[in-house]
């Protein structure tokens, strides 16, 4: 192995290394503006789609105005690509923790409520052969709630417009299912459940709707085209 790398010890190698390093530094120095533009343009991919175009354009202007050569545009570009872009990628995707916790609790609360409703309907009040469509409705309702939760959790990775569209479809379906099940629960759930059951069934989607409206406004605002 020693003879293969013996050229490293040759004095001419040091000279070549110095010349090569000087050429590379010179090339970077002359093209630092172009390298910087490429860096910030690539780094903008990390951002949510709604903010990508705005930040890319703003950063490109920044680097162009910082100069075409020399260290300055490259230093700014490295700092933007290495620090600002990943930082903003997290910052712009983060949602208020309280809202997320409330939302998870809200959807999770539906599961025991409807499991309990299922037992009440199937075990006590209903005759042995109850309406066959009740169970699928309850399962569908819970699944839609979980689906909504999944969309809510993943929304940071989707465009705001896409999220709002899907969310609206799921919400409408769930509301329809809710209002189908309300009279059933009211009619079949005895005792206190005759009042509390329907009240909960109505209250949960209303609360969800209020939360979803709160969430949609900032999403819509973020989805606006900043170039207009």
């Amino acid at each position, binding site marked *: 192995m020693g003879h293969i790398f013996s050229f490293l010890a040759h004095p001419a190698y040091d000279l070549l290394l110095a010349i090569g390093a000087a050429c590379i530094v010179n090339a970077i120095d002359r093209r630092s503006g172009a390298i910087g533009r490429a860096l910030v343009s690539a780094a903008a991919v990390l951002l949510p789609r709604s903010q990508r175009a705005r*930040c890319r354009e*703003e950063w490109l202007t*920044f680097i*162009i105005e910082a100069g075409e050569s020399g260290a300055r545009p490259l230093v700014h570009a490295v700092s*933007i690509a290495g620090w*600002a872009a990943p930082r*903003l990628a997290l*910052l*712009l995707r983060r949602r208020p923790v309280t809202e997320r916790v409330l939302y998870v609790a809200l959807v999770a609360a539906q599961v025991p409520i409807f499991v309990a409703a299922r037992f009440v309907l199937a075990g006590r009040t209903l005759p042995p052969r109850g309406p066959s469509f009740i169970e699928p409705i309850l399962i569908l309702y819970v699944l839609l709630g979980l689906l909504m939760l999944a969309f809510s959790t993943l929304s940071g990775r989707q465009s705001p417009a896409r999220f709002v569209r899907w969310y609206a479809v799921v919400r409408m379906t769930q509301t329809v299912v809710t209002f189908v099940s309300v009279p059933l629960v009211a009619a079949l759930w005895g005792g206190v459940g005759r009042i509390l059951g329907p009240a909960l069934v109505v209250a949960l989607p209303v609360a969800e709707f209020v939360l979803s409206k709160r969430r949609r406004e900032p999403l819509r605002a973020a989805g606006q085209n900043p*170039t207009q």
Partner: protein
Amino acid sequence: MLLADPSAERYGLELAQATGILGGTLYPLLARLEAIGWVESRWEQLDEHAEGRRRRRYYRLTAAGARCARRLPVDLNSSPGLGWA
């Protein structure tokens, strides 16, 4: 710097040069300030071909931002690199 003349609009490089911070520190800072309503921004209305340069995004303090920034301690107010950015 924004507080010196709250009505004045500044663009990214101008802010970076005046405060001595890098673009990588500046933009997350501006994004946070914008998110909490201390700063507002807008695109410059400009014919890029006629002017021969790209349009800039201008930032300025909001009334609430100016009010809150004046309440900051002097040493924090004059510090160019805010740690939480």
